[in-house]
């Protein structure tokens, strides 16, 4: 097998450009291993060679990913890599996000395997765990010697096609992908053992993990609705024609705020692949009940109806994306003095 070409991505610190003072530094390229790429290269052995290190300041990428990512891709292209390794980023948030977005972009553009490493709580981990392999690391660079060999091992097997076992066994962050693999016991046997353990009060481990949700206190009642400014929020994805904010029909991270005039009496469309939107497109009041809310305002039963509908697309949206959207909408509520809302869901 010919020696595989590996390109590594790292930030200004690990690329030895400088510290936080150089976080705004643009791209630089070294055609030799530096920083974590030295360990990558030695771990690769005869299998591969680090042909380039792409170094970018954390802020340079984080502040303008729309331009920085394509710039990075252009630099990577000439090296024709077989494998792209980013970081590891440990618990550095900007670095983790940047490693994740570069891995995703490289995989999409060049169709090559990508691997990175992050601490589980790194915000980049949740956002990009389905787009690349993220090896679990410690929360500091002290874990470099453990993380890099795992990253290289996964990278090599992604090239050769050898088995990559489930996340728990391999030490990467779960990707929510379903894959069959052989076990010694049949599923029925494992299920009975699990049931017996549960009945006896003995410890057992579910093979399927269920998401857990943070507990929130219920907001207090509105003291006086006649003074309240009420808004409409929805995850039904009904937007002005042209989809100005780029909602996706699944796995969307975008949201928009639209005036009534942008929705009613004009061309609209729905970006949500999870339901038949025929009825809400016939009459948007079925999703955004503006007509009856206006009646309540005229009757003096509520203070004001905010002329703006907050729209997201709830089809297969990740929990973290939905939480981010919720926080941003909540900020808009604060900005506009909105004290109550109706959320319609499809």
């Amino acid at each position, binding site marked *: 097998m010919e020696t595989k070409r590996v390109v590594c991505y790292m930030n200004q610190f690990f690329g030895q450009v400088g510290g936080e003072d150089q976080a705004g530094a643009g791209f630089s390229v070294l055609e030799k291993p530096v920083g974590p790429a030295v360990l990558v290269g030695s771990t690769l052995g005869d299998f591969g060679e680090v042909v380039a290190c792409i170094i970018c300041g954390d802020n340079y990428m984080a502040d303008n990913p729309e331009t920085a990512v394509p710039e990075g891709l252009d630099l990577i292209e000439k090296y024709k890599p077989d494998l792209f390794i980013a970081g590891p980023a440990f618990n550095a948030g900007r670095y983790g996000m940047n490693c994740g977005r570069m891995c995703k972009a490289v995989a999409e553009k060049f169709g090559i395997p990508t691997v990175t490493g992050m601490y589980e709580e790194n915000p980049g981990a949740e956002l990009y765990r389905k787009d690349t392999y993220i090896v679990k690391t410690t929360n500091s660079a002290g874990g470099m010697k453990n993380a890099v060999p795992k990253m290289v091992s996964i990278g090599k097997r992604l090239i050769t096609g050898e088995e990559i076992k489930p996340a728990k066994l391999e030490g990467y962050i779960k990707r929510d992908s379903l894959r069959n693999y052989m076990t010694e016991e049949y599923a029925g046997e494992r299920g009975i053992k699990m049931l017996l353990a549960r009945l006896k009060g003995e410890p057992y481990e579910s093979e399927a993990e269920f998401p857990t949700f943070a507990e929130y206190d*219920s*907001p207090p009642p509105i003291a006086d609705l006649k003074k309240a400014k009420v808004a409409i929020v929805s995850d039904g994805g009904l937007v002005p024609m042209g989809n100005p904010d780029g909602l996706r029909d699944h796995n969307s991270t975008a949201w928009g705020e639209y005036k009534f005039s942008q929705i009613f009496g004009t061309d609209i469309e729905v970006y949500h692949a999870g339901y038949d939107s025929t009825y809400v497109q016939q009459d948007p009041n079925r999703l955004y009940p503006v007509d009856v809310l206006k009646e309540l305002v005229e009757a003096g039963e509520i203070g004001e109806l905010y002329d703006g509908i907050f729209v997201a697309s709830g089809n297969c949206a990740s929990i973290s994306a939905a939480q981010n959207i919720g926080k941003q909408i909540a900020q808009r509520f604060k900005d506009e003095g909105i004290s109550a809302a109706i959320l319609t869901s499809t």
Partner: protein
Amino acid sequence: MVQIASVTDAAMLVGVSRLIRGYRLICPASDFTLDKDSEKESRRRYVKRAMDMLKKPGQKNHFEVVKLVDAG
């Protein structure tokens, strides 16, 4: 905030404390099978119930059902 959703299980799972079971997933805020005026009345009832719930303490693991049409 009051959520109007037909898939109440999902809403309760994440801890929504003011929840109304919507008409249908494809049309949460009114009964589209009714004539125009009756449909609007159904929507009025959903929204009025939502406003009532805003004035009261929230209740998790609970959803309200709105009667959309009168008998007879």
